[in-house]
């Protein structure tokens, strides 16, 4: 489960961010986060056009067990959301790194990406959490 893709950056709260070629940032939650939450039954998505500051709640993922905020790794404007999650939130359980992306943000301060955890840092965080 710790096959963490090398092109992602992370928040300590288990969100991932991927810088796309067009400068936008795709956001999701990690494989570890989905496995901790268990079966997802509802995702509250942001609206396209919302402005969100880095570290603020942008979405909510709810499993049978718990609701969890999804924080935005960077500041900016939401340019698209994964509508498929409205009807099939379990996509995140099946493919947290890929099809389970949650929203795309157009960053207003791209330098914020440099402050995020690298895949190695994130792997170490998970390692420490396990002990």
């Amino acid at each position, binding site marked *: 489960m710790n096959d963490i893709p090398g092109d992602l950056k992370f928040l300590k709260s288990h969100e991932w961010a991927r810088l796309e070629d067009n400068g936008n940032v795709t956001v999701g939650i990690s494989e570890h986060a989905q496995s901790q939450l*268990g*079966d997802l*039954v*509802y995702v*509250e998505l942001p609206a396209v056009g919302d402005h969100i500051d880095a570290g603020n709640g942008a979405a909510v993922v709810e499993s*049978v*067990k718990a*609701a969890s905020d999804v924080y935005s790794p960077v500041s900016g404007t939401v340019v698209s959301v994964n509508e498929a999650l*409205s009807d099939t939130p379990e996509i995140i*359980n099946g493919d947290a790194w890929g099809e389970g992306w949650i929203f795309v943000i157009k960053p207003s301060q791209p330098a914020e990406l440099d402050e995020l955890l690298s895949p190695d840092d994130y792997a170490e965080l998970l390692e420490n959490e396990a002990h």
Partner: protein
Amino acid sequence: MTQQTVLNSTHRALGARMVDFGGWDMPINYGSQIDEHHQVRRDAGMFDVSHMTVVDLRGARVREFLRYLLANNIDKLKTSGKALYSCMLNEQGGVIDDLIVYFINENFFRLVVNASTRDKDLDWIARHASGFGVTLQERRDFAMIAVQGPNARQRVAGLLSEQGNAAALKLGKFVGAEIDGMFIARTGYTGEDGFEIMVPETDAIAFWQRLLAAGVKPAGLGARDTLRLEAGMNLYGQDMDESVLPLEAGLAWTLVLDRDGDFLGRTALQQAAAAGVTRSMVGLVMDDKGVLRHGQKVLSDAGDGEILSGSFSPTLGKSIAFARVPAAATQFRVDIRGREVPVRAVKFPFVRDGQPCAGI
């Protein structure tokens, strides 16, 4: 220090996600909690419930004692093996715990109480038992496995001796018996048919493995919670506690107020019943997307209330809950992160024998 049941390493070997559950290290799920839920509704699943507390009560006056201790009427139990669900109340009528009592013989009744309330329950029972000459024996030598689902009884019976097989399949609902060195009762906490089985700890792992081999899949406490909520069953600590009367927790059906002899909490209950209670417990269904959760505020036409047990219902594909609300309330909305979502009050159970109930 968290406690472990004898099946702890068995759960881990099956890949269970373990969590602290009232001081016990227990499996919350083994994979998909929703799959485990459906497994129980459609076929057969099993739960390790060895954390629950089994207490044997013995003495010549044990029936008389239980008449005083319990809010339900122990005299409903007339034949050996028959079980009764009851609240145990304090003098103010608040719920100390809910429990199952089995009538074994006139000198011997068996109680199953919650794990989270073990210490205070045993103190309370012991304090009142001494005056009746009744002795308590906690049965930590038992593990307990609940096998539940439409095919549960057949699967269990197939593992028993010829004589045991016949005896187990003959058990009526809410009746238990000593069979093949185990205590097998046709009870449960899922709204499905099945057995709850007390098995000597030394035999528990082998019995669990035989159930697995017979096609009974393990289910965690996560599925147990959604199953019991769909079945309209209360959870102690969440739906009622010592500050709540059974009348305010949808448990009036468990009370027998008009009987001879005193019982603990009776005076307070009679006063409350005469005055009329101001709060009641309702079942709620939310047709919008989202999940009702414990602690969310309920807004009504008669004042505010709160969600008690709330969850996603895998059988219904939407969220259901119990809520404590003003008794006069008829229209409800729930505050979910600042959004007021309409919900419908419905009769519970929400699901019975695998099917949604009418009006849900």
